[in-house]
């Protein structure tokens, strides 16, 4: 039963009209003027085999959007704009895709190389850099338009081919750092004048750097080496001192074990004054004291560690493993350096991402086609979200963390 009110009668019965307006149910008013949504509890999950990403929210643990058409995501990762509105997804096929986290759509997409391995966003959020295997080098784009700003081919002495580049991270003062897999070099790029990238090259850092990371404060860059036991460290507060070897000879001369998936150094685990790193070709996690860079302990692990991730408060490390032992996560107590919990989420655990304050962790289980959400205190599974071959999980809080 509706009653039409013309303008005059509305004026005449103004008071009654106001009363009627106040009686409009909350939901109806919300429809008229949508409640703005924030992005702080959002995340993006890669479905590696189908070129698709899911936008999720970690409060109610639901999927908000499904976005198709991102190409080959077999080794994909993402960074976020400083307002946490946009994700930049780096695909294997050289695709760089800007995704709107709120509207759940692709805003911009370029195929900028033949074969890529991740990227980084600059300190000021204006530049997005992509690391390329083929042609080897780093390309830097305008974050708004994805227009090319700088092209840095990884040419090196003694080869006509360009080196594959790995371990690309952002650093303070508008810099990027990355390493050259084939050349054994680390390059520091100052982009404070985008028209004139200033590249400082550090040569002879070690054999086959396969990934790199930067500490949360943006001071120390560390490249993991595949070709030898040890890591290569650059102190960005004293780049004139060059790249130094740390944890040299950690394998103690033993023949390395085969590695069925390369470790990833993205989740630099810093806790209790120590840094925790996956050994390569050893079923161990190495603890190194920051500052002295001495080894201060090692944890015997289930298999070849892939990700060693510190819970945000630093008390526990969550570690996943390489094929064929990738059905397992071990939780390690940083205080005692012992395994306190072994979880079996399912076959092919590929990635773990903590909610910003660490109360939950989201785990992608590729061969289960599922993302599991664990309570990090009770280890209880709180939610199961079906996904197609999920791999990387990226929460928007990364927007405010150097190196992620």
């Amino acid at each position, binding site marked *: 039963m509706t009653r039409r009110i013309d303008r005059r009668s509305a004026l005449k019965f103004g008071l009654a009209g106001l009363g009627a307006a106040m009686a409009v149910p909350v939901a109806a008013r919300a429809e008229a003027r949508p409640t703005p949504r924030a992005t702080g509890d959002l995340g993006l999950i890669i479905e*590696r*085999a189908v070129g698709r990403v899911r936008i999720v929210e970690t409060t109610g643990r639901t999927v908000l959007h499904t976005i198709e058409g991102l190409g*080959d995501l*077999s*080794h994909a990762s993402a960074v976020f704009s400083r307002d946490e509105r946009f994700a930049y997804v780096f695909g*294997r*096929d050289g695709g760089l895709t800007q995704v709107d986290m709120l509207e759940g759509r692709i805003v911009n997409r370029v195929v900028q190389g*033949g*074969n890529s*391995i991740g990227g980084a966003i600059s300190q000021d959020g204006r530049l997005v850099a992509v690391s390329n*295997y*083929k042609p080897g080098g780093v390309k830097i784009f305008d974050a708004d338009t994805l227009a090319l700003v700088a092209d840095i081919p990884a040419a090196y002495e003694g080869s006509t081919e360009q080196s*594959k580049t*790995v371990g690309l991270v952002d650093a303070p003062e508008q810099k990027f750092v990355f390493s050259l*897999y084939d050349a054994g070099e680390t390059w520091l790029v100052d982009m404070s004048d985008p028209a004139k990238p200033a590249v400082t090259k550090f040569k002879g850092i070690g054999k*086959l750097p*396969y990934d790199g990371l930067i500490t949360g404060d943006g001071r120390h860059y560390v490249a993991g080496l*595949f*070709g030898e036991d040890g890591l290569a460290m650059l102190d960005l507060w004293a780049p004139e001192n060059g790249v130094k070897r740390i944890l040299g000879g950690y394998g103690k001369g033993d023949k390395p074990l*085969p*590695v*069925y*998936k*390369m470790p990833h150094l993205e989740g630099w685990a810093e806790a209790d004054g120590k840094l925790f790193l996956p050994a390569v070709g050893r079923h161990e996690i190495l603890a190194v004291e920051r500052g002295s860079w001495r080894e201060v302990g090692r944890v015997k692990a289930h298999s070849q560690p892939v990700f060693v991730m510190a819970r945000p408060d630093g008390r526990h490390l969550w570690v996943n493993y390489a*094929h*064929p032992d990738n059905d397992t996560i071990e939780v390690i107590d940083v205080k005692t350096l012992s395994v306190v919990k072994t979880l079996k989420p399912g076959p*092919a655990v590929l990635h773990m991402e903590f909610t910003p304050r660490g109360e939950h962790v989201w785990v992608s289980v*590729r*061969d289960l086609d599922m993302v599991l959400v664990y309570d990090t205190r009770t280890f209880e599974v709180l939610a199961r979200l079906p996904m197609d*071959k999920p791999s990387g999980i990226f929460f928007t809080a990364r927007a405010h963390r150097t190196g992620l």
Partner: protein
Amino acid sequence: MFDWSRTSPPLLTLAALLIAPAAFAAGDPPEERQKVLLYRLIQDCGSCHGMTLKGGLGPALLPETLKDKADESLTDIILNGIEGTPMPPWAFETSASEAAWLVRVLKKGAVHDATH
């Protein structure tokens, strides 16, 4: 579950004849095992060689990149890896005849056809 990887080639061939006669051709693994091998090739070999096998940290495994390499040496690489590189040995879960079959599939460029 029966572990095919621990089975000797003659028994494997016999099993292939008994279980999947339709899929049997010149020492091919049985159909169910082919699925496992191809899944692993795409998903796990794919972490270094790319899920489309166009390469990554490891080289491309496409027909044009493999055509000049002998089947035997490629089979040997799968089984025993390449020392001093990240390529690990897969003999612990792949038999010689399975590795040889994978090489044939790779050289034909039939990996993704075979999975559909």
